[in-house]
């Protein structure tokens, strides 16, 4: 497995675990009165956890393949990245358009803000998944 495929797995795992836990915890403890404080507190914890987990796993991956970790992406890897970015932007755009609609019909602003965050996470997951599929196919 190449270093960049490992990186995609790391992104998929860390985003999935951290923000999966974030949204589950937020949904369980949701309270309109403390929603903002709760969201900010959980978000700070989630970002710190994401950085810590992703950094630790990336360092581990770099230790196992130091040469590849320092090498720039070759043309096939750049193409895979571009294709994954395109799919990711489609996912993000779709979610944003839906959330604009939600705002227009009067959804709670804090809820929409959290759903925007979820959209960004979904976009990252789509990107990582698209990269992994492309690397697995060998294309």
């Amino acid at each position, binding site marked *: 497995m190449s270093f960049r495929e490992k990186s995609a797995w790391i992104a998929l795992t860390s985003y999935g675990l951290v923000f999966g836990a974030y949204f589950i915890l937020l949904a369980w403890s949701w309270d309109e009165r403390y929603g903002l404080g709760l969201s900010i507190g959980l978000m700070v914890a989630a970002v710190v956890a994401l950085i810590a987990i992703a950094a630790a796993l990336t360092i581990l991956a770099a230790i196992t393949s130091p040469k590849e970790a320092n090498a720039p992406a070759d043309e096939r890897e750049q193409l895979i990245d571009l294709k994954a970015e395109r799919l990711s932007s489609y996912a993000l755009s779709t979610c944003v358009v839906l959330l604009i609609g939600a705002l227009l019909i009067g959804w709670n602003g804090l809820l929409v803000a959290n759903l925007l965050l979820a959209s960004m996470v979904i976009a990252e997951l789509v990107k990582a998944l698209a990269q992994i599929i492309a*690397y697995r196919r060998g294309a």
Partner: protein
Amino acid sequence: MAIANEIRRLRFEAGEMTQAALAERIGMTRQTVIAIEQGKYAPSLEAAFKIADAFGVTITDVFRWTKD
């Protein structure tokens, strides 16, 4: 894939050059060399020239386009 290649044969003729060694010579990853060799990825013209140069042959000795 309409572009076939002779990389496997050329590696054999070059003293069983490994995919990793070829990858290093052309500045790509071993996974990309595998993808090119298996016909799953068509390299850029620049990469194709680099591969041909690594074997000391012309580009048409490595790659050929087939109508299908």
